[in-house]
């Protein structure tokens, strides 16, 4: 009975939407009313599998995941190590890093949209000052993916930093004192005390960042609308496009299920890779 409220919440906000999305992925829909009008079997899955844009979105979901994880976790760890030092100004710096978490994703996206603008943006303006030509930051597929990843890292780095900070402060000081008495170097202390001590924090931060990278959506819809030619679309945007722009709830739901399946596989691999070893 004690866990019933939590279970109720889980059923209502997690299991029900997931079950509904799965059910919808097997249905045909009236494009006008969005009411289900027949069982479609696996035809929605077959349809998205035959759509090249779907596979571009799958690949981009992976690219965003790898790019954001690969940049954000090491940077967050570095920041956490710096902010864990008892020196003047760290309290202010901690607040600044974490403050970006509180900012509205839509507002941040519009702000970066202006920064990246080819004609009037700050970024290209700065390039112009050193004699470099303007770059198509949001209109070239490869550049747009890169700048979206940079923006996401800047916006979301606060959370893993916070997790690592908490992890660092839970490592007993005695370990460091003992290592110091034994004459251990900084790298050796980091590798043999700090990193193992942060294992659970790394696991948690990896999950959180992976989920956030997979759900990456607001900057895409506000800055590139998935373009050019779907080159910045991911599975989240693809499912939105199918469901809400093209009135195809069935294929949109099938894309959501594909995204959850992909996330489950990635998470399982991460759990296995970061498991506790004897």
């Amino acid at each position, binding site marked *: 009975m004690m*866990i019933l409220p939590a279970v109720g919440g889980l059923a209502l906000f*997690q299991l029900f939407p997931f079950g509904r999305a*799965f059910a919808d992925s097997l*249905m045909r829909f*009236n494009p*006008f009313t969005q009411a289900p*009008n027949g069982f479609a079997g696996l035809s929605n899955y077959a349809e998205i599998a035959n759509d090249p844009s779907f596979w571009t979105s799958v690949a981009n979901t992976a690219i965003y995941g790898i790019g954001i994880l690969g940049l954000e976790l090491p940077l967050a760890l570095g920041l956490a190590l710096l902010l864990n030092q008892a020196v003047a100004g760290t309290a202010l710096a901690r607040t600044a890093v974490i403050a970006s978490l509180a900012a509205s994703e839509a507002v941040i996206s519009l702000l970066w949209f202006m920064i990246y603008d080819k004609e009037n943006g700050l970024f290209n303006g700065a390039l112009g000052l050193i004699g470099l030509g303007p770059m198509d930051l949001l209109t070239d597929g490869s550049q747009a993916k890169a700048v979206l990843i940079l923006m996401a890292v800047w916006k979301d780095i606060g959370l893993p930093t916070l997790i690592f900070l908490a992890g660092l402060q839970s490592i007993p000081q005695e370990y460091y004192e003992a290592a110091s008495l034994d004459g251990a170097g900084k790298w050796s202390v980091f590798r043999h005390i700090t990193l193992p001590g942060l294992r659970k924090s790394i696991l948690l931060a990896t999950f959180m960042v992976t989920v956030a990278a997979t759900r990456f959506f607001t900057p895409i819809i506000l800055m590139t609308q998935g373009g*050019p030619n779907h080159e910045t679309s991911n599975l989240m945007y693809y499912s939105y496009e199918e469901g809400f722009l*093209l*009135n195809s709830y069935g294929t949109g739901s099938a894309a959501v299920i594909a995204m959850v399946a992909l996330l489950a596989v990635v998470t399982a691999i991460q759990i296995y890779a970061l498991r506790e070893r004897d």
Partner: protein
Amino acid sequence: MKNHEKRTQPIPAVDRRSVLKAAAALGAFAAFTPMIGACSSGGSPTAAGTVSRGPGPGGYKIDLGGYQGPELRTEAITIRVMRQSYTDPVNKLVTGMYDRFSAAYPNIKIQEELVPYGDLQQKMQVYVSSGKAPDLMMGRSDFAPAYKAASSTLPMREYFTDSYWQDIAPTLLDSVTFDGQTYAMPWEHLAMNMIINKDLFKLAGVALPPETSDPQKGWTVQEWLKAFKDLRAGFDAQGRRDLWPLAASVFGNGGPGSNYGQLESLWIRMMGDPQADKSTSAYKTFAGISDDGLTSTGYVDTPEAIEGMRNYQRLFQERLTPIGSVPDQMVSSTAAVSFAGPNQAGIWLSGAKPSFDWGVSPLPRGATILTCNASDSMVVWAGSPNPSETAALLGYLNNDANRIEFHKAWGSLPVRNSVIEQIPELRDSTALALAVNMGKISAAAPKTPGWFEYFNTMNPIVKDIALGADPDSALKDAARKVDGQLKKYA
């Protein structure tokens, strides 16, 4: 002893795992419930039957325009309205109209929701799907085939007099009428022109386009492209990279691919010819869709359409217009020309003059001159519990006095000829007379129940072309995608 016995007996299976399983089963049951009986689920609201007649124009407490439906009920009623947000003075003007309506009918309260223009159609669709849509919504005439096919909007023919309907511009009325029923009430008539900043033409040393109220006497598309190139060269020669020959689109959410129906489709369809034989690609290019509204291949990817999109692409590749969305370039005098509805000229003529000398010229002419009359149109939700009161409110908002007041504040072209005749500047000003004449030759958007998908598929493809995609392959890809989407309406 008994208590001890109870404690030592195993508790039957109410552990965390079983609770989670039960919750999962509950969630799954709830989720899959819609599948049960899905085939019987229609979901569309019922359309109104025969409308009982009231006293007709002049017989109600206030001027309800051409409304001829029953007298309004006296019980407390709330009418929900969803529309785009205008400027503050225009918003106040509209809410003032509500206040006057409620003063005459104190039992009727009006609740309003303002939505960004580019989000109106999607918001409307979500509302209709939810089964709790506002009574009165701002839709668009180009979506009328979808409203009709979905039975989502109230057929309004019988709520208004025949003479009222006949007063509306025929091409516009035709775009919202199917089988004798009318599914949307045009709110304004989009008839575009090219608005020009004469000071910037002079600055660049480029000859001005013809200022005329005759749509056929403007420049061809090639003449416009040459003028844009000359303007670019003139601005660059003076180191004015901040100035642009053509302003970024302010339609929809701005930038390229912002509003295919009202703007970008012109580049394609002007290359076609509505007078050509139906089997020719010239005719199909203008039509944009097959007669049954289900095929775009052979219509949006013709040689003429590809040529039209190559012209469009030059605007971006030759730095004739910004690649992104830049607001208010015309007002801020950083662009020499802009595609604009008549409201811009109307506002400037009404006294809010810009800081530069301005004029208007007809749209670029390809094989034909075209303005698409995809216009803002009000619809009454078919599921509205207050259809007569909502139609009456619509009639009130559209009465002569309110339409003239709205024109003076917002500047857009009224849809009824009798109202146009009461506004002298629509005859006397070249700028507005051109809009009136463009309205007379305007054409509807391609008629298909899948216009929402057509529109949303074409927008990003047009943007891709602006960014450099090959128009030939992009349009063929677009046609394939649109046809794929339209299959569900077969």
